[in-house]
């Protein structure tokens, strides 16, 4: 692999890692607050991308469609919590987990029934799919846009978590929900905020994914969601910085492995999970994870 190819692959890895990171944050934040692996999270990403497609098909401009997609994903994410998870706050965690799997199946099949399972072309605008040449490098605009937007969003999320009263309440919820209520804080409102934030990021991740692999279908959230979940675990579930780190590590590994061993390209998903298993063997709490009873974020 010469240097140009290597650089090219690194840039691709950065883009892919960005998507994993954006989606992984939702997994890790919900886990931090509710100790729930929200298996429906990957499908929220699909909902976001699908709504952009539908809004665009209905005649909206691409930026307006993106807004519809993000807001729609927030609505679905928050409603999922209110309808399916909130009644189970006091229930055993396993009931919550099974419910999450149920919601995941529900969303996948709902979209399958409504819109069919045939992949559709995603309406990425030209200014995002153009290819720029820099020396020997060959870059789609998205390879630059995705990492930049991702880093801006990450800075925003960290700022909310560490510099606002809402973030402080989110971090406190991770320790002790009843005590947070005794501070006069509406804990369910803060939990809704966590779902809203996670869903918005998932939708953005889903839109990036749909632009890069320009098709969408109702099951697109499954494997991407699982890999983002792997990224969250890799980074240490519950830690936002860990999720970002895990996302990028997974993105780079996947791209580089395929670049180095093109024959094994078909196994790239397997590599991601192989790598996850390897890390967990040596560091069961993930890279940034601490022991489970301690603080998160």
């Amino acid at each position, binding site marked *: 692999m010469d240097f140009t190819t290597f650089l090219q692959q690194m840039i691709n890895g950065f883009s892919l890692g960005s998507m994993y990171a954006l989606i992984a944050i939702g997994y890790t934040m919900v886990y931090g607050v509710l100790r729930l692996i929200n298996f429906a999270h990957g499908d929220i990403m699909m909902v976001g991308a699908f709504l952009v497609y539908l809004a665009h098909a209905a005649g909206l401009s691409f930026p307006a469609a993106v807004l519809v997609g993000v807001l729609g994903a927030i609505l679905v994410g928050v409603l999922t919590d209110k309808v399916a998870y909130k009644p189970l706050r006091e229930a055993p965690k396993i009931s919550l987990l099974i419910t999450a799997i149920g919601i995941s199946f529900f969303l996948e099949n709902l979209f399958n029934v409504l819109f069919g399972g045939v992949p559709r072309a995603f309406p990425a605008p030209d200014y995002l799919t153009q290819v720029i040449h820099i020396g020997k490098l060959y870059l789609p605009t998205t390879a630059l846009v995705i990492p930049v937007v991702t880093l801006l969003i990450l800075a925003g999320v960290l700022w*909310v978590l560490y510099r606002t009263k809402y973030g402080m309440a989110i971090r406190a919820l991770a320790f002790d929900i009843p005590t947070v209520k*005794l501070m006069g804080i509406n804990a369910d409102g803060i939990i809704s905020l966590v779902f809203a934030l996670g869903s918005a990021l998932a939708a953005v991740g889903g839109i990036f994914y749909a632009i890069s692999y320009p098709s969408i279908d109702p099951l697109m959230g499954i494997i991407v969601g699982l890999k983002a979940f792997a990224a969250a675990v890799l980074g240490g579930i519950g830690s936002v910085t860990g999720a970002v780190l895990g996302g990028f590590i997974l993105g780079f590994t996947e791209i580089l492995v395929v670049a180095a061993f093109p024959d094994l390209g078909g196994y790239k998903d397997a590599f991601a999970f192989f790598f996850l298993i390897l890390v967990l063997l040596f560091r069961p709490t993930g890279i940034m994870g601490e022991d489970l009873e*301690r603080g998160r974020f």
Partner: protein
Amino acid sequence: MSQPILSVENVTMRFGGVTAIDHLSFAVQKGEIYGLIGPNGAGKTTIFNNITGNYIPTEGRIVFDGKEITGTKPNKVVDLGIARTFQNIRLFKSMSVLENVLIGYHNRMHYTYFEAIFRLPRYWGYEKRIKARAMELLEEFGIADLADTEATALSYGNQRKVEIARAVATDPKLLLLDEPAAGMNPSETEDLSIIIHKIKKDFDLTILLIEHDMKFVNNMCDRLTVLDYGENIFVGTPADAIVDEKVITAYLGEFKHA
């Protein structure tokens, strides 16, 4: 007597077949330090949980500041002006002392998501003012120098102070303290009683406290209720309590039968 700030009227709390509180009534006047004492399992913490809305009483009602609050949600009860601490300290671990206290100010930081996102003046203003107030509060407790320390790294006595400071931060009229002196050595207990008197005066508080340490109770409380098996067996001053026959029997009963 004027209208009490808190009145517990005929409250009964059953958990399945177990009656934790049995037709309990007592009233706390504004500005007093009222004690709730009794042997282990007498239902003291249960009545705290009833008042703060963690448990809804099976029967009876609780009136605070002229308003019935029976069954009100915990976060609403705090808004009405009741704050509490716990027997086993419940701080937000791995957050700093200052952050623990800042959480208590959550509802007094009047800015919206919108103002926070766009960092409008109201956001900066509140963040700055509330931080200054939180530091003053820590000063009051003599732990301002520990503001940036992780809460769990503090000594037990100081953790207790942080917990009380966090409760005071919610701007209560009534402060419920669940065994504030538990696990403290005599000098820490002494220090704490001075602080409690001071914050009571500075923040115009009424205090209801649960305690085992009779010396502490004597030192602190204007009046008290003695609970035994969920029933009110004595109301009066600490000095009268220690010579009351029923109270002595409740505490020392097991020795008599031994």
